[in-house]
């Protein structure tokens, strides 16, 4: 079985997000990019499936700063192959990214495409269902449980309040992963470095992306601070509030 996992870089929220001069997007020059945490779950789930039976795991990413490191880390964690798509916009929104990935993945013969269900900057959609439409594959998102048997994936889709729905999905399919069955693993630096010496990343040109559903960002801004909380400075003040509210 072949599992393809697209990996996307997103701005690291540990840094303050700065806006471009026009106020229509992020200023990427000073941003630190990191792997989308949901994609890390998708990769972990793929590796779990591989380790529980047999599968080939292919990590795919659009070329950009630090992407090599991200892909080598995926290899160090246990992915079998890493593919880098060159000549595409590394900061593309999901509608455009889905087109780029669909081009790249369509010829790979994937049985399963595992995508992080969301990322912090999703503005024009979620990657998984859009990608599935372009690949003409069935799809289910917000999946926390996944089991593959004889060409069928049995998935648990999460609703609110802890309720889940179970679906059978005929493969090949695109699944939007909410959480892997266990915390994504850590790749020791020495292993990543070792892989950097021994493994290679395959390159693939993005090619013609075709028509992308566009929407224009008119403005991006930081939210104005609302009146916000009244700041208390001692536990006594908290106790006062609790009394006032009749809690104690």
């Amino acid at each position, binding site marked *: 079985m072949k599992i393809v996992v697209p990996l996307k870089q997103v701005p*690291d929220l*540990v*840094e*303050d997000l700065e806006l471009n001069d026009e106020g229509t997007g992020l200023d990427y020059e000073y941003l*630190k990019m*990191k792997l989308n945490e949901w994609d890390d779950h998708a990769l972990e789930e793929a590796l779990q499936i591989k380790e529980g039976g047999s599968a080939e795991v292919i990590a795919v990413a659009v070329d950009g700063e630090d992407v090599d490191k991200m892909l080598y880390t995926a290899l160090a964690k246990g992915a079998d192959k890493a593919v880098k798509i060159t000549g595409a916009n590394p900061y593309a929104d999901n509608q455009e990214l889905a087109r780029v990935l669909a081009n790249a993945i369509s010829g790979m013969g994937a049985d399963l495409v595992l995508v992080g269900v969301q990322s912090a900057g999703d503005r024009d959609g979620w990657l998984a269902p859009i990608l599935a439409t372009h690949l003409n594959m069935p799809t289910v998102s917000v999946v926390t449980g996944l089991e593959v048997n004889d060409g069928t994936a049995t998935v648990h889709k999460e609703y609110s309040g802890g309720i889940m729905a179970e679906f059978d999905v005929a493969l090949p399919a695109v699944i939007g992963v909410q959480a892997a069955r266990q*915390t994504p*693993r*850590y790749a*020791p*630096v*020495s*292993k*990543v*470095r070792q892989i950097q010496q021994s493994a290679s990343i395959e390159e693939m040109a993005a090619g013609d992306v075709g028509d992308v559903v566009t929407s224009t960002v008119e403005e991006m801004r930081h939210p104005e601070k609302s009146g916000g909380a009244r700041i208390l400075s001692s536990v006594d003040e908290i106790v006062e509030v609790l009394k006032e509210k009749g809690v104690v």
Partner: protein
Amino acid sequence: MTLKTMVRKEKENKISYVEKDSAIIDGIDVSGHWNKMYQPREISNFDVGPLEELRALAGAESIGNCYQCAQCIGVCPVDNVGDYGPRKIYRKLQMGISLFDSADLWQCTTCMNCLRVCPKEVNMIEIMPAAREKAILDGKEVPAELQEMFQNCAEYGNPMGESPRKRARWAKKADVEVKDLSKNPESVDVLWFVGDYYAYHGRGNDAANAMARVLTRLGVNFGTLGAEERCDGDSQRLAGEKGLFEMLAEHNIEKFNSLEFNKMVVSGPHAYNAIKNEYPKMGGSYDVDHYTQFLSSMMDKLKPLMTREFKKKVTFHDPCYLGRHNGEYEAPRTLLNAIPGIEFTEMFRNKEQGYCCGGGGGGMWLDGFMADNINERLSENRVKEAISVGAEVLAVCCPYEVSRFEDAVKSTGNEGKLQVLDIIEIIDQCIE
């Protein structure tokens, strides 16, 4: 365990026993396994695989030297509050129990007290990092808190997972100028390696500010690496992430080499150990002092500045990586004894026999894990000792320790009884 699997395991482990198919004693039927009697076992009956596997690792060879004298157990700070020690590890290995899958793997703080007394030179300081590295590379389960720390250091260059760009932010709030050599390179006399806790931790910031003021008052021409500094990596190395250590060290060495300075001064014993003993192996050799060493070499200048009295009863905790690991016991004491008005008292376990705070060798990020394995935190044990000698202030000179001991003061119910201060904070308070 079912009877069947027990028998199978017994066979695998070559345990021999006598068992009568039919036996009735005093009218009670004790046939079969009810009358089983085990034969004494030879040590050679056990699987030596786990011991050999560990011994085969570079650095871990000396585990085979152990002859079970148990000197180490008497001085092991972890055994003092739990059930762990070098001798016990060897004993388990003799019985075929692997270290790689055991909680023992993560309990050693690499404090070095065992090596000090070991007649066979079983060197846990090298055995533990080697064993841990193998476990990590083999994908064994790493305690989650430690794994998160590794991840943070790999991504951000500090264990807290803070933005590397904010590393020099504390200096903006300092009331003296702290030169950021990464922004404005210039030749300085002293390159001050600030370290993670001084840079990011609230209480560490207090010490960093104190240090900046004291150096300024002494007229030292100093600067820092600013936001370009990264974690020294020593605790990561000792916790088994050698590759991460190398990555951090390479970064720091490259930055050090791009600057002109005569001497390096570090805030913390772990950075001191790394830069003094490990960085040279990677091509970075520097004249480095722990800050207590640097300041104690300037007593003629420092002493006249300290005009304000600090009339408190003070005791001092020797950091393992300044003391036992690097033989420096006097510099901090020279400073403390020069504090006007101070009443200095030693704890029972001091200098070579100093007790470990529990933060070394990665222990700083294993408190949750250790809680399941020990009955009292090492820092709590130490705080009680400080109180028992009547101290009002526990002086430290390792950036890990202020927060560790302050926590311990609270968790042992001694809040208000014992203050924890970095020596540099005390010196700063004495300068008008």
